[in-house]
């Protein structure tokens, strides 16, 4: 039943958070679940990294937060993207694509 789970690659957590938040306002727990789900359980996001990252992104003005009720009627903190956050997401995505292409290229050549 235990699967092998990888911690999110250093430096990409911010990008992943921004990407998931981009779909719509979401609270921290759901966010961690979504990352896990979307990556088909490949990534797991430990709380010890998730929350500091969220606070940092909020503080930096890339995320904004609002306390709202969930479907079950509980109060939770919902994060959404700011304009700056949207901008940062797109640049990080471009950078990531370039990086992964480059890495793939190298791996292929070495083969």
């Amino acid at each position, binding site marked *: 039943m235990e699967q092998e789970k990888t911690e999110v690659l250093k430096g990409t957590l911010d990008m992943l958070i921004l990407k998931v938040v981009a779909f719509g306002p979401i*609270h921290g727990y*759901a966010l*961690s679940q979504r990352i896990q789900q979307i990556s088909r359980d490949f990534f797991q996001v430990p*709380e*010890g990294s998730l*929350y500091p*990252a969220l606070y*940092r992104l909020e503080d930096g003005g890339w995320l904004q937060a609002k306390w709202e009720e969930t479907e079950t009627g509980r109060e939770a*903190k919902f994060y959404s993207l700011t304009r700056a956050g949207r901008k940062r997401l797109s640049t990080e995505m471009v950078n990531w694509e370039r990086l992964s292409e480059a890495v793939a290229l190298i791996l292929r050549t070495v083969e």
Partner: protein
Amino acid sequence: MGWLRRLFHKSLTEKRMDAELRFHLEQRVRDYVASGMNQEEAQRRALLTFGGLEQVKQDCREARTENHVEDFLRDFQYALRSLAKDRRFALIAVLALALGIGATTVMFSVIYNIVFDPVPYRDFQRSVVFEMRDLTSTGDKGGRDHYTIPEFLAIREQNHVFEDIVGNYQLDILYADGKGTRRFLGGYATTNGFDFLGVPPILGRVFSPEDGRPGAPLVFMMNYRLWQTEFHGDPKILGANFFLNAKARTLIGIMPQRFNGYGSSLWLPLGLSPGSDGTSFPVKDPPIIWALARLKKGVSLQAAAADLDAIVHGLAQANPGELYPQQFKVVTRTLLDFVVGDFQNTLYALLAAVFLLLLIACGNVGNLLLARATVREREIAVRASLGASRGRLIRQLLVESFVLAAAACVAGCLFAYVGLKGLVAIIPPGPIPEETVIGLSPAVLLFALVIAVLTTLICGLAPALHAVRGNLQLRMTNSGKGAGGGSRHGRLRSGLVIAEVALSIMLLTGAGLMMRSFFTLTHVDLGFNPERMLYTRVAPAADGRYDTAVKKKLFFGQVLQRVKALPGVITATVSLSVPPLWGAGSFITVPGKTHSERWESMFDLCSDGYIQTLGLRLLRGRLLSETDIDSGRHVAVINQAFARAYFGSENPLGQKVKFNAFDEIPETPHDAYFEVVGIVTDFRNRGLIEPLSPEAFLPYSISGFGHRVILAKTAVDPKSLLPSVQREIWTVDSNAAVASSGSVKDLLAEESYARPQFGLIAIGAFAGVGLALVLIGIFSVMAYTVALQTHEIGVRMALGAQRGNVLTMVLWKGLRLISVGVLVGVLTSLGLTRFLASQLSGVSATDPLTFLAVVIVFLAVGLFASLLPASRAAGIDPLVALRYE
């Protein structure tokens, strides 16, 4: 400011964070339970996967801004530590900045106190004076700012622009206390005069409208200084009667120390109806008064001038005659402008100078910081690779400059405290209201603080931005003192030195020009020798016992005889004014001459010794003789300028001249023509700057009007003779008051030299400090460059370069820097010094000699500052230098 609130409401933030994390845990437990775990097991697992709750919280806290404050404190400590490591740098930087901040603070507090808070009067910004300016006469001499009482009343009734208006005039008041007579400066002011200024008395009351009604009891007020010096601050004198100008008056009030309204020691109420009861003005010789008015709110100076212009032109049409110039307009000025006037320009010139100084200091410190940043490249690169963001690094470097600026601010305020005392001591007394208190005030200290913050940004930002520019990681691989880093910063550093030199050139040319101007001023050929010359102004007795020409002659004849007999006196004379500073003038009429413009001449009423006392030379004809004086003959000796201006190539001797003003003066021959009997050499009779004017010297015995002066040429220090002269005057009549006396030389210094001297000393001090800063600046840059190039020089020398080559190479480099700075500075100065023109006399604002001298000084300073680093470079041992690498 949200972060600030969070800092102080930490508990709320903490609660929110708790709630969020708790929600997370609960959700996870719920999910576990949903997948079939029992409640207890689910909770245990959830906590386990969460990891250390406290650690997570701490990490979250650190991600937020409020920790920036803690970061800041850490930066602060770090800055202190790193500055303490490099104490010499810190000291030089703090000293340079402190000089800049201190000088700026001194100048600002002088300007703040003189321009913004000079007097304790109510609404003094809206207080104005106005004058009729004669449009036909050249310069701003023509016109008048005194008005007859009917004019004053008309202006008071008809104007639409004033809230209130005060009339006043000054007169001598002779106070007889039974033992002797003393003369004080008195002032008549309309009864609203004290409510107008809004300063309450410290004892008693101010004038009420009743005090100005005809037949009202006679009253007066006294200033603080007179109360202290003459009456030892005795409060019991309030309500006592005093004999002033031979009338008994009751003292009703004493004004506080910081009050010098209407510039008098005693104030009397001025009634505005004619009469002879002491409150009303005399019909026979009515005073002309000076007006001070307060504008209604929102009325501009121009609007007020236009309103008054219409009124005064109406008066001129209704009363044609000599009272009004042919063409004139009314000009309004603020009271401040009237009092401080041109001195403001001196102050603003000095303020500009200190800002230059501050910029030089900033440039200097900026340069030192840059040099430091270069040395610290490696440290910065390490910090960057350990995850410090650029913003973080910049902030840290800025905190460091701020620590420097803060220390400099404190030291600067200390400098300012001392400097201000020095400056106040040399500030000329004339242009500053007596009430002005110059000192460090909260506003001034706030200014110093703002300057310190600005300084931080100016001198810290560029080096900080520069330090973190480019690829920080890459620099790790350089040794940190390689040539690459050096040249990268090199251009900015050279730029700063060039800017410093240029700024300093501006300061020094300003100081140089003022020095030249001052030299010219003090070496103006007066046309007579003011050395060892004594003057004593004599105010005759109050009861009019010397008001006729005969009686005056009798009195002064006796005085003169006694003064001449004093041991130490060579010659003595009576005159109307003290040369070269003041004199009387009049329009003149010369029979048989037609001319479109009005002819003017100055005149003096003197005895036969005048020409000898001043040491003027007779050119033609003869001097005033004793018989001329004794019989009051209508003869005149004129100066060369007079002869040239009005007689040209004609022979002036035997011509007649009429002085039109005499027709208006009581006890003076009306419609009288004076025969020219002699011509003497010119002397400066309108001060040091104004061109000299035609002048005529007439026997003093023709007129009984006004006060006179005793002038004496002495063989000893003139001041030592003053008591004897005074004694002789009192021997003739103890009721005659000596008004003011001293040596002409001192008077000249006080009246003509004090102001330019103040400007010169102040700007000279600033320029000196600027030069010292530049010296430090060039030295530190050159020393640093040599340190960076040790390896290169070592290689050169190993390859056979001589010590002399190295020396010249370094010197040449220093000289090149300075030359560029000098060029920029000279060009800028050429454009800027014309703003200094108002402060200069006798020297052009682009005086080539001054510029040349400044350039030479700078090249010398530059060479001197480069010499030590250059000789150090030449002393490098190639073996050591190469091994060192």
